[in-house]
């Protein structure tokens, strides 16, 4: 035992166990162990498994057949893949509208009027209800025969528009439905953020003659930076995970025009007619790299922030 040669201090008893001696460095790992274990089993390991499966042709039931990168080659000239990718990008861009929309609703609600708590709850309501319900509500709203949308635009002599049945509008229609709860989410983040805005700075800015847009842009928004960051993260992730609304509202249709990568992956591998685990895994790998790009960026900026403080 080499440790036995170390000189004993007065704080050390003669025969402390190995655990006692390393307690400070071991304990955090013990507390982390369950999380790490499950994270490994349910997140890290499946990522590598997906990489592996994507190199096979496999129906999920029988024997796997190694086919190298054929799945990726096929993906390369699969028009459905590009439709999904294009829709994913539209989702990413338009979903970000939830951030300014949430900010303005938060500014609007950030006042002391009788019953403001009730109004705040009402605005937050769409985030509380299930995405499935949101999808159903919007499906009826868009319905070409009895939907509210077409009734309203009918009054001004327009329509009817079959939003969910028309390949040109369908993705925008679903994103609009998705923005409803997402805006509420961003709003609640900004409402919390606004509580932390320093009133002295506002006072000072007011003395300097700042008001309206300038006040908002140069004084309020910079102080909301942490809230903006979180809103950005949840919105990007939300856009990439958009699955339930598509599944409920259009099932990927008409003829696959509203699919995104995650839905296409599900359809290819796990839906009623899907028996192509390998191809689905290949789509998952592509989606993983797209997400990784954003996640790496967020982790980097978080790291930078922490170093800055």
């Amino acid at each position, binding site marked *: 035992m080499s440790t036995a040669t170390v000189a004993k201090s007065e704080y050390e008893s003669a025969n402390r166990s190995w655990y006692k001696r390393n307690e400070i460095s071991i304990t955090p790992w013990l507390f982390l162990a369950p999380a790490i274990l499950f994270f490994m089993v349910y997140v890290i390991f499946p990522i590598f498994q997906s990489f592996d499966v994507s190199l096979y042709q496999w129906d999920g039931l029988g024997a796997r057949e190694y086919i190298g990168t054929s799945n990726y080659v096929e993906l390369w000239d699969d028009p459905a893949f590009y439709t999904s990718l294009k829709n994913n990008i539209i989702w990413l861009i338009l979903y970000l509208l939830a951030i300014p929309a949430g900010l303005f609703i938060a500014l609007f609600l950030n006042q002391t009027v009788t019953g403001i708590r009730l109004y705040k709850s009402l605005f937050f309501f769409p985030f509380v209800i299930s995405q499935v319900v949101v999808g159903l509500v919007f499906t009826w709203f868009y319905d070409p025969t009895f939907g509210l949308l077409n009734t309203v635009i009918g009054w001004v002599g327009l329509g009817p528009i079959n939003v969910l049945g028309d390949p040109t509008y369908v993705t925008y229609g679903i994103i609009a439905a998705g923005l409803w709860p997402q805006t509420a989410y961003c709003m609640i983040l900004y409402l919390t953020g606004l509580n932390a805005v320093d009133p002295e700075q506002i006072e000072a800015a007011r003395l300097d003659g700042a008001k309206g847009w300038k006040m908002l842009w140069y004084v309020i928004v910079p102080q909301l930076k942490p809230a903006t960051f979180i809103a950005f993260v949840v919105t990007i992730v939300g856009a990439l995970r958009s699955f339930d609304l598509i599944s409920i509202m259009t099932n990927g*249709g008409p003829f696959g025009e509203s699919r995104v990568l995650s839905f296409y992956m599900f359809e290819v591998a796990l839906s009623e*007619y899907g028996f192509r685990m390998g191809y689905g895994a290949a789509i998952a790998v592509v989606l993983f790299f797209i997400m990784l790009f954003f996640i790496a960026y967020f982790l980097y900026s978080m790291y930078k922030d922490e170093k800055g403080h």
Partner: protein
Amino acid sequence: MRSILKASATALVTTAVLATGAFAADKPLSGDMKIFLDTSNPAPRATFEGVIAQFGEMHPDLNIETTIIDRDAYKTQIRNFLTANPPDVATWYAGNRMLPYVNTGLFEDVSDLWQGDLAENLASTKTALTIDGKQWGVPYTYYQWGVYYRKDIFDKMGLTKPTTWAEEKANCQKLVDAGIKCYTIGTKFLWTAAGWFDYLNMRTNGYEFHMALTAGKEKWTDDRVKKTMANWRELLDMDAFIGDHTAYSWQEAIPFLVDGKAASYLMGNFAVDPIKAAGLTDDQLDFYQFPLITEGIPMAEEAPTDTLHIPSGASNKDAGRAFLKFVASAEVQTSMNASLGQLPVNNKSSVNTDDKFVRQGFEMLNGAYALAQFFDRDAPAEMAKVGMEGFQEFMVRPDNVDQILARLEKARERIYK
């Protein structure tokens, strides 16, 4: 057995006593038996509950546990439960739809049940349940497809049941001129469009070509397929279908027929029940066979068969076999299909002649040259998906036809290699 013809599901239990005699020779069954069903709609659900109760009375030592799963959810769950938690009996569909489970050895070979009298009685569906020369399940029902139309609207406008393509189009033109759409359809879930393709293709090019096409032996870019699409296009150019059909499920398309905005519906017989529930009576609703298109081509029909299977991982296969045999028998098929409103497969069963749709369907299928299952049961799953999406796109953008067929051809080359 005439009294049984009208039997509802609840009455099945009382007839059990009568039927028991026929099966008394079987050895007693015991233990547990698990049955998974996809019969989640009210009528099929009650029917099966009745049949299982009847079977349970015959085998008092058998502890039967039934699980009914939503029909659409079942289609994705079957893969999981066949491997992880196999029941002793499971419902499924005939044709290529069972191929993945047969190929991977998840369905039990039940050729031994297809012996003697039973084989003779079920002969009409034997090919649909045969893969590699063995049988993998037994049928319990099948149903016809055809055009369900508003008789009152036809009468008012002086139209008659069409028997040829020219008559069909002439009728349709008159309806369109009067501001009524000829056909309602909801293509949100794609398969309804495949019904149109199947019929148009079988009538234009014949059963053999259609089967070769779904089996991957003919090219999708073939001129014959183009001819089918051209026939379809004639209807599309006439504006014969309701607009916005991509937004509706097949059930959501029913109100157009009920409200008189559309005059007919190409559908399976299972649609009669919801249509009547939506308010149409037997006087208003009638049925005709899909008309002849190419002169001289024998009339084949769609008749999807629903089946029962024993998973190879089942723990009580004796009970499973006994149940399959029981359901395949003439008496049980008679009473079951009377309450399902469909057709029994066993040719010794009697058909519920009080139901005019069942009666007409039975006559039509008896005279049919051959029976197809349905596009998504005749073609393998992947091809069915790509194909049906193509049909839906064609109905919205008929100008893309060449592009769509080229895509299907590319899929065919990949899938059937």
